[in-house]
C-alpha cells in the first residue's frame, strides 16, 4: 500500500506541474475570488453577466483572464504590476462571478496565497502555492476514501483496485489540482460518509456529522444532497420513530446554524440569503409549461456528457481523447454503473445505502436544477463531471460491483485489472491528451 500511495503521489505531482495555469473550468474567476479573499475582502457578484467577466472596473485590465481568445493564460506580469501598485488604484468593488459560492474553500486557498505573498514569491509561484489547497483536500479525501473501502471489501486486491481507479481518474486529478471548490465538497462528503460508517448513530455523534455537512454546504451548494441522505440513512438503521425525529432535528439544526453567517452576509449584501438568479447566469423568463417535458428530456440526454467527462475531458472540457477511446469508455462506465447500481439494491449494508441514496439525491438535485435552467432561464451549459465528483466514489463502487457480477466475483482478478487499467489510462491521458494539447 505504501508503494501504491507513493505512485499515486508522483502521478498527482506530474499532473500538477503539466496542467497549465487556468486550464480548469472557471479557474480564473475562482483564483480571483481567492485573491480578493487573501486581501481581506470577499468580492461582489457582478450585476450584469453580459459584460465579459468584469472583475471590477479598475482592475479588469489586470485580471482579464478570459479574453477573446479561448481561455488564454492571463498575463502574470500585469498581475504582478497590479500587486505592486494596488495601493494607488481606486478599485471600487472587486467582483467575481464565482463569488456566489460559499467561502470555505476560498478561505483555505487564500491562507496559502497570503503565505506565498508574505514570503515574496512571484505571481506564478503564488498561483501554484494556491493550487496546493486543492492538493490538501485531495490527499485528505484519499485517506478517508480508503477507510470507506475497508468497510466494503475484505479482499485487499479489490480494495486497492477500486482505490487506484478512484485516485488516478484524470478528471478527478484535474479537479484535485485546479483552484475550485469542487474538491473541497468531495473531501467533506467523504468525511461525512466515514463518520456515518464508523460512528454509532446517536445524538452525540450527530453533532460532528451535522458540522461536516454544514461545512460541506459552505464549500458549495451542491452538498445539499447530504441533508436528505442523512435522514434516509436513519430510516435504514431501523431506529425508533422518536429517535429518527430527534436525530434529524439535531442534524438539520446544526447544519442551519453553520449556514447562518453566510445567510446574514448575503442578506446584508444582496438582500437574499441565497443568491439565485445571478448565480444561474441568466434572468427568469415566462415559458409555456409544455417546455418542461422537453427540458427534462434534454437534461437527461445532456447528462451523458457528465459521465463522458470521466474518460479524460480536461482543460475547459475542450481537451479530450479521440472518440474511439472516450465513447467506449463512457458506454462501459455507464453500463457497469447501472448494473452495479441495481445489484446494490439487494444489499443492506451501510456503504450500499449511502452509495445508492447519495447518487439518487445528487442526480435528482441536478436534474431539477438543470431542467429549471434549461426551461426557465434558457441556459446553454450542462452539468460537468466535476459537479458530480462528490458521488464519484459510489459510482466507482457500482462499477466494481458491476464487474463482479459480470466476472462472477473474481475479486482478485478484478482488483488487479482495475489497478493496471487505471495506471495505463493515466499514462495514456498524460501522453496522448494532456501533453499534445499544451506542449507540442
Amino acid at each position, binding site marked *: 500500500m505504501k508503494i501504491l500511495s507513493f505512485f499515486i503521489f508522483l502521478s498527482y505531482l506530474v499532473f500538477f506541474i503539466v496542467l497549465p495555469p487556468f486550464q480548469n473550468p472557471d479557474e480564473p474567476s475562482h483564483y480571483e475570488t481567492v485573491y480578493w479573499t487573501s486581501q481581506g475582502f470577499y468580492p461582489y457578484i457582478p450585476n450584469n453577466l453580459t459584460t465579459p467577466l468584469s472583475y471590477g472596473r479598475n482592475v479588469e485590465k489586470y485580471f482579464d483572464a478570459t479574453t477573446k481568445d*479561448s481561455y488564454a493564460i492571463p498575463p502574470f506580469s500585469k498581475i504582478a504590476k497590479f500587486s505592486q501598485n494596488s495601493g494607488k488604484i481606486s478599485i471600487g468593488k472587486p467582483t467575481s462571478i464565482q463569488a456566489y459560492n460559499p467561502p470555505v474553500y476560498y478561505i483555505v486557498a487564500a491562507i496559502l496565497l497570503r503565505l506565498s505573498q508574505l514570503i515574496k514569491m512571484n505571481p506564478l509561484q503564488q498561483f501554484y502555492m494556491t493550487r496546493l489547497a486543492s492538493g490538501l483536500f485531495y490527499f485528505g479525501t484519499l485517506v478517508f476514501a480508503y477507510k470507506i473501502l475497508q468497510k466494503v471489501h475484505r479482499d485487499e486486491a479489490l480494495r486497492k483496485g477500486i482505490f487506484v481507479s478512484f485516485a488516478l481518474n484524470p478528471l478527478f486529478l484535474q479537479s484535485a489540482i485546479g483552484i475550485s471548490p469542487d474538491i473541497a465538497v468531495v473531501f467533506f462528503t467523504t468525511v461525512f460518509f466515514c463518520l456515518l460508517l464508523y460512528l454509532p448513530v446517536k445524538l452525540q455523534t450527530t453533532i460532528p456529522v451535522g458540522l461536516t455537512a454544514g461545512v460541506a454546504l459552505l464549500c458549495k451548494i451542491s452538498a445539499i444532497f447530504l441533508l436528505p441522505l442523512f435522514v434516509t440513512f436513519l430510516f435504514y438503521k431501523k431506529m425508533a420513530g422518536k429517535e429518527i425525529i430527534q436525530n434529524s432535528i439535531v442534524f438539520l439544526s446544526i447544519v442551519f446554524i453553520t449556514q447562518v453567517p453566510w445567510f446574514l452576509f448575503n442578506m446584508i449584501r444582496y438582500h437574499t440569503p441565497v443568491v439565485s438568479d445571478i448565480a444561474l447566469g441568466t434572468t427568469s423568463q415566462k415559458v409555456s409549461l409544455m417546455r418542461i417535458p422537453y427540458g427534462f428530456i434534454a437534461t437527461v440526454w445532456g447528462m451523458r456528457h457528465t459521465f463522458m467527462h470521466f474518460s479524460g475531458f480536461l482543460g475547459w472540457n475542450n481537451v479530450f481523447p479521440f472518440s474511439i477511446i472516450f465513447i467506449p469508455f463512457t458506454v462501459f462506465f455507464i453500463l457497469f454503473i447501472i448494473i452495479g447500481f441495481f445489484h446494490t439494491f439487494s444489499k443492506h449494508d451501510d456503504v450500499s445505502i449511502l452509495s445508492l441514496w447519495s447518487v439518487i439525491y445528487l442526480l435528482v438535485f441536478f436534474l431539477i436544477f438543470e431542467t429549471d435552467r434549461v426551461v426557465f432561464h434558457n441556459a446553454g451549459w450542462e452539468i460537468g463531471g466535476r459537479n458530480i465528483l462528490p458521488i464519484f466514489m459510489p459510482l466507482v463502487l457500482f462499477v466494481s460491483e458491476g464487474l463482479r457480477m459480470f466476472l462472477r466475483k473474481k475479486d482478485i482478478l478484478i482488483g488487479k485489472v482495475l489497478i493496471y487499467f487505471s495506471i495505463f489510462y493515466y499514462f495514456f491521458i498524460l501522453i496522448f491528451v494532456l501533453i499534445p494539447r499544451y506542449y507540442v
Partner: protein
Amino acid sequence: MYKKIVITLIVILPLFYIFVGYPIAQRIPVTGTANSLRCFSVDSLKPFFMCSHDKLQGVPFIKHIFVEMNDLQNGFGILFLLVIFIQILLLVSIV
C-alpha cells in the same frame, strides 16, 4: 517474472510514444478549440514550461525536452523523465 515484465510493458505502453514522437499526432487533428495554447508567451512561465516553436513541430517529445536552450527548462524536462522512471520502477513492485 516473465509475466511481471509483460504486464509492466503493457501498462507503460503509452510512454513509448514520447520516444517515437509526434509526427503521427500532427496528422491527427488536435481535439479541442482552434485557439490552442501552443506556446506560452508569458515571460514568467517560460522557465517552467517548454515552449514549442514551429521548428519543433514533429520533433519527438523526448528530443523536444533537450532542444530548449534554457538550462532550467532542460532541468525540468530531465526531472519529468526522472519522475516517470521512478513511477516505472514502482510499477514493477506493484505488478
